[in-house]
């Protein structure tokens, strides 16, 4: 402030302008340090609060119209993939999912379920057909997406055999990513 030339002497710090300027620079330096070290928002990692808890019930209707309930297969891992046909990164991970499904259908220790997210049945069916998906695909279900806390596709969850959510990936996954998650969980619980 400028109105301080006339003031009782000695009651306030000399050179207040310098003090204020220094404080301002320090604060800004802190701000800049934080801003400079931020990762791009699109790859920010955040842990879902569901991790480690029992996964929400997975049930719905498949694209063909029949009701679906997750068959309980002891010892199986379940990979739940939320996708949309308009989502570019989903197209990237599509072939990887096909590979994962194929490999694990042979080893018979994991099953894959896809859930449509914010898309029409027809587009999603066409997309899955084009991909060559052999695993069940559930219709878009707002409540299901909410119970899993899905914000945007592609989001993939891995559910351990004990029913707990082991991992959430909010990015295109690869088959090896998924295998790695399964291996980690297996190692933790013999």
């Amino acid at each position, binding site marked *: *402030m400028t*109105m*301080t*030339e*006339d*003031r*009782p*002497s000695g009651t306030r710090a000399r050179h207040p302008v310098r003090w204020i300027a220094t404080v301002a620079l320090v604060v800004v330096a802190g701000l800049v340090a934080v801003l400079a070290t931020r990762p791009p928002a699109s790859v920010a990692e*955040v*842990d*879902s*609060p*569901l991790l480690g808890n029992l996964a929400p*019930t997975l*049930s*719905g*209707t498949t694209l063909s119209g029949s*009701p679906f*309930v997750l068959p309980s297969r002891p010892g199986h891992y379940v990979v739940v993939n939320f996708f949309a046909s308009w989502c570019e990164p989903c197209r990237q991970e599509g072939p990887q999912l096909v590979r994962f499904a194929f490999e694990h259908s042979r080893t018979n220790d994991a099953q894959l379920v896809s859930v449509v*997210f*914010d898309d029409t049945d027809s587009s999603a069916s066409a997309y899955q057909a084009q991909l060559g998906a052999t695993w069940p695909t559930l219709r*878009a*279900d*707002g*409540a299901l*997406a*909410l*119970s*899993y*806390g*899905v*914000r*945007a596709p592609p989001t993939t969850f891995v559910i351990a055999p004990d029913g707990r959510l082991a991992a959430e990936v909010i990015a295109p996954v690869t088959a090896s990513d998924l295998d790695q998650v399964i291996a980690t969980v297996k190692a933790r619980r013999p």
Partner: protein
Amino acid sequence: MSTTLRGAADPMARRAADGDRKRRRFPWWTLFGVVAVIALVIGSGVLGSSAPTAGQRALAIETDIRCPSCEDLSVAQSSAPTAVAVRATVQRQIAEGRSDQQIESYLESRYGASIELDPPASGWTLLVWLVPLLAGVGGLAVVTTVLIRRHVTVLDEAAAGDVGSIGSVSDDAELPTDPDRLADRRAFLVRSLSDADAEYLAGDLSDRDYLALRRRDMKRLAALDAHGSSALPGPETPAVLSAAGPAVATASAVTSSAVTAATAATAATVTSAATAERPRRGRRSWWFLAGAVAAFTVALVVAVTQFSSNRLPGQTPTGSVSLSPSQQTEETLAQAASDEDQGQVEQAASLYQDVLDQHPANEVALAQLGWIEFETGHSTGDRSLLADARAKLDRAVKLDPQDYAARLYLGTVLLQQNGDASAAVAQFALFHADGPPAALVSQAAPVIRQAYTAAGDPVPAWLPANS
């Protein structure tokens, strides 16, 4: 040099006239204040407001929850499917009787803390609330303190009637020694003096203020000149209200004394009476003003925080005049549903009937009323009631094939009334296809299982195992 003050022709008369005017003057501002406060209190809706309805609660929660797939919009604003799903969940949970806090915790347990648009006031996030408040309060405190001290000083000086004494009171302890700063300060004081003259002429400064400012600036100017008179070039000094246009002075000493004399002269003509009475009253009135402003600020802050927490965003004006028909229907249905939950079936039935009177095709009312009628008819054996119930449920199902509640009711009626298990099974299958909430499924499981068993069909997988 003649001194003229505006109205100096008869200062005493003018002051008397002023006083008269004051005494007779209508207290407009008091009236304004009172009327405004009353109007705002009425307008806040605090009188006669009731507990928020379900719709209002839902809207309040939805405005604070971020749409999961959008960037900044709340679920109330967005029409994205994720937002629609969250709204449906919120409304359902309100109907189930959960509190606002429970609903928000549920959503946070799914999406994480960042689903809330309003940062909570706890932990590190407290900073985002505290820092602005502290900065604001701190800044206000600093400004107020400095300004109060200034104002009191000006009045003190006016009261002291201290003319021409150098180095008295307060603030001039730091006279600059640097010639540039001296010249700067001198120019500033000269400009301020002429400014004060012009303001006074134009009627913006009161006599008292004008004299106080003038006296102070003159004193400072004199002090400055005495301090550095040798170093200064010939300055320009305001002559006192001469008619001849810009005055040009030559020697600083001459003008200083002339100015001082002028000030003394003006002091003599007008001020003695005025200043003797005024400062005490002036200071008192200033403190009153400060107190009033502070009280007003506090009241405003309290009012805004208080009313903004009670008044929900988008709250419709109270009074049925302002509620639109569709809003009214919503409210009635919600009220009826809660009545039904609390077991006041007759009240609920009459409310549903009200809705149907206005909107005969409202399927929610049809289904619910049909169900109530069936239950009543079933227990009393009233055949006409049962037939009416069946008709309503049929109609509800036809109007909205996707309504799972109507399907469930119809299936139950078919089973328990008509004994038609296979038809019931068909309805229950459709019920399931409509995506009912799990709670309802488990609640209805016994009846559904009964139907399937009676029809000879295998119990479907989607029924929970234990019921």
